[in-house]
């Protein structure tokens, strides 16, 4: 969680210094959800997120260096600089994105869960119990893809957990103004899966609920819908002036900062000392500083990278007038992509 918070704060700094551009959506305040869920996963389990994905990536194990480089648009980024803030992917850590349109990641997560079931039942890998977590927000819960996937996941008992990070705001649209029945967790039973509400500012409570839900999925009992009540301390993105939200509301949730709460809990229960926690803070600061340095020193992509990765099989660029496949031409990457 500390890593998530420090990283995001650094992102804000870097953004205002002109090192990263575009739409950057920071996760400050929601760290308990990411940590609470993802730290229970194995490497082969999959995570699907939205544009607010930096911390999901970090929780899943993507190195801070790779994420920071990606944000700076360098070739050493996890997606070679081609994805950016909203499209974090990692094959190694099974992070299936990073999606800019809300809701479009949920079917992809459903597909990953389908593969898990397929592996067990068709490919006969009997011990395959890979679980997929789909993270998305309150705004997404009014979108068709959400409901369509709840239906399919419950129908086929897919090993997936739908995690709603309800931070009450979709940019400037209050959840209460957008939703006829704002209690999202109630929508689970309508599709035949348990719907659970949890205090998303308390990492230990989230972890308990997550254990249950992930366990259910692993045992093949089907999906779960978990609504985490949480809050983002910053605006929707770094471009959002965040004028609509009531300062009283912000103060209320700031007082429930998950990191402060956990620190207090650890100290009160003698699980860690102040010194231990300070050491963690320091270590994380070093990690983040190192990530920035690494990203700064990394090379920018050269022009020849433009046409790579458009197709897995570059024959897809077609046959040129000379009869050869365009991709066979060594000068191809210096030209323009057209068919």
């Amino acid at each position, binding site marked *: 969680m500390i890593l998530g918070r420090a990283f995001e704060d650094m992102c804000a700094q870097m953004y205002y210094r002109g090192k990263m551009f575009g739409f950057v959506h920071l996760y400050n305040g929601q760290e308990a959800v990411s940590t609470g869920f993802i730290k229970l996963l194995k490497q082969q389990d999959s995570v699907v997120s939205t544009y607010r994905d930096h911390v999901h990536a970090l929780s899943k194990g993507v190195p801070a260096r790779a994420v920071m480089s990606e944000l700076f648009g360098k070739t050493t980024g996890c997606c070679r600089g081609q994805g950016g803030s909203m499209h974090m992917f990692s094959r190694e850590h099974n992070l299936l994105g990073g999606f800019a349109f809300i809701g479009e990641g949920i079917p992809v997560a459903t597909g990953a869960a389908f593969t*898990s079931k397929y592996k067990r039942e068709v490919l006969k890998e009997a011990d395959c119990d890979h679980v997929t977590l789909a993270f998305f927000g309150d705004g997404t819960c009014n979108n*068709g893809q959400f409901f369509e996937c709840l239906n399919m996941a419950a129908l086929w008992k897919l090993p997936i957990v739908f995690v709603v990070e309800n931070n009450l705001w979709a940019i400037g649209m209050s959840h209460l103004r957008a939703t006829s029945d704002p209690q999202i967790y109630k929508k689970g039973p309508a599709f035949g899966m348990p719907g659970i509400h949890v205090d998303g500012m308390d990492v230990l409570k989230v972890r308990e609920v997550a254990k249950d839900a992930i366990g259910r999925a692993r045992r093949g009992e089907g999906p779960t819908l978990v609504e985490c009540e949480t809050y983002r301390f910053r605006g929707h993105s770094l471009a959002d002036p965040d004028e609509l939200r009531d300062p009283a509301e912000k103060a209320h949730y700031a007082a429930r900062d998950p990191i402060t709460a956990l620190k207090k809990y650890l100290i009160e229960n003698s699980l860690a000392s102040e010194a231990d926690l300070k050491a963690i803070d320091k270590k994380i600061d070093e990690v983040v500083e190192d990530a920035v340095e690494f990203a700064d020193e990394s090379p920018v992509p050269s022009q020849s990278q433009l046409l790579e990765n458009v197709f897995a099989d570059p024959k*897809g660029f077609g046959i040129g007038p000379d009869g050869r496949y365009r991709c066979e031409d060594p000068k191809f990457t210096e030209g323009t992509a057209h068919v």
Partner: protein
Amino acid sequence: MAAIFQGVGAAAALSSSLSNSFDSKKFVSSPCRPFSVRKGASFAVVRSDGRVNLNPKGRRAQQLISNAVATKSDSAAASSSSKPGHELLLFEALQEGLEEEMERDIRVCVMGEDVGHYGGSYKVTKGLAKKFGDLRVLDTPIAENSFTGMGIGAAMTGLRPVVEGMNMGFLLLAFNQISNNCGMLHYTSGGQFTIPIVIRGPGGVGRQLGAEHSQRLESYFQSIPGIQMVACSTPYNAKGLMKAAIRSENPVILFEHVLLYNLKERIPDEDYICNLEEAEMVRPGEHVTILTYSRMRYHVMQAAKTLVNKGYDPEVIDIRSLKPFDLYTIGNSVKKTHRVLIVEECMRTGGIGASLIAAITENFNDYLDAPIMCLSSQDVPTPYAGTLEEVTVVQPAQIVTAVEQLCQ
């Protein structure tokens, strides 16, 4: 594989054979059985009786045959095998291709509405669910965007799904997933994830199916970077393209046509695929290059008979690969004939023809003796009324006129 038209003599023989078999009574009484292959000819004559639900009027039935006739050389001769080959209909060819690939690779699975127990609305997946099980041939609820996205997620995590749109038009609902995820994910993930998905389904103008079931989405999907598009037109290339699409690591959209599912042809027994990026030479010629695809291939061949009788020698190329274009085959043809006519079922605005004109002008302008002509469907929603629907798409008579104009 090239289909060679045997020349003027054969054309005359062909037209007489057609008039022999234009028996509308026979046609109406056995709507689903295609006509037999004419024996003794050096080529196979393939007939189509159009849709399964036929217009019962005799005269119109006659028109149905004439609108969809195809000629193709004995493809067994084109392959070097001594096996006799086997006859089947286009939808069976698609099914055969799909079945063979599912046997060959256990990761290949099918998803779509009514593909399992129902066997597919056009019977392309008939029998597959019984053979491979309900998970490998998945009957989905009616949620195109989500199950296409599910297919993409499955493809990213190791499976090779074939997603069926019951009608290509329904894929408009899946446009978000097809554009953003299918086409782009390989790129935005920096090459980490491949999406070896095949999205297929019937499209095109049928028999009075109404505007929404008669859509041609080639032009809509054309611009999406990262996908390939192919259109099949014969049982031979249907099976070949299906197999190649499944084996490809790229996302491929395979366009089938509602009216071509009952085309019959003899195809090789042995395993073969059709190259996804190559065009098909249907009839070599000297005077004019006619570029076409899907059902319009048959209208073109119908017009070709008339043209040959009038003394023209058209070269007909089925471009097959709608994205990317096979500029080698097309270019060689342009360099030979210097005149190009494009005949497509797409809409005029922003269609495949428009892109093709741009590509040819860019690459082969010096070889053109005349401006490129393009015959497309009218820019109208397809009307229900039969007479109006007929003039929405390009008819053989228009093709003949266009060639005459072009060759003046």
